């Protein structure tokens, strides 16, 4: 479930990135790469888990699924927070800089 949620987040981000490309003012590429990196890693984890559990892997307990869903959503939220920090620190549009300068003037 965590893998599924992250893959969906990666796909949505990639669509948004493609829509706005070649402009990268919102640094969406960073968010895409972050989610794709995590998706690939969880995919590998899933393969190893499948090799261990076999068909049981596809029939998780409802409580485990709910926990994994919460985890997936939390992971997406954390990814968004990291992206927001990168965006504010890099400030490609100069919004933060101009806002700070405006205040100090």
């Amino acid at each position: 479930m965590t893998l599924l949620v992250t893959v969906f987040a990666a796909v949505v981000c990639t669509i948004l990135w493609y829509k706005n490309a070649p402009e990268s003012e919102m640094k969406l590429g960073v968010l895409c790469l972050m989610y794709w990196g995590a998706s690939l890693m969880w995919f590998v984890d899933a393969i190893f888990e499948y090799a261990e559990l076999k068909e049981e892997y596809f029939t998780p307990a409802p409580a485990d699924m709910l926990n994994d869903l919460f985890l997936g959503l939390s992971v997406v939220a954390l990814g968004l927070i990291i992206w927001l920090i990168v965006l504010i620190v890099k400030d490609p549009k100069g919004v933060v800089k101009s806002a700070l300068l405006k205040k100090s003037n």
Partner: protein
Amino acid sequence: MACFLVSAAEALVATVVTKVVEKKEKKQQEVGEVHIETKTEEPVTKVPFSRKLKWLRDMLWGGSALLAFEHIWHGEVVPWFPFLTAAGDPTEAAEMLHEMATVGVTMAVVVTLAWLGMLGVAAALEKRAQKDAVTES
């Protein structure tokens, strides 16, 4: 248990390499700017290698960070020494190292292979752009 550490280590190496390559490219660019008058104007059809390295760096750091969060969620990483719960017990530590050597290394390899695929696509697009530039001129 701690599979994300392998990718995090590769991310660290990728970050250092990116910085070094970026510095080299900047130096080359400065030299190019000095001799700009003697050079003919060429269309930009190549993505700098430092930018390509940033794709790998972002995938590795992003993936490692999100996986680290998953490990915190499951109580495998704690904010006190030795930070990894499995490291406290020799049997669990051996299991952790085995997981790092199998799952962790595979994760890093798969991300790197995906990046190599991206490099292949980028190279093909660069070639096409160069061909278009030649036919246009």
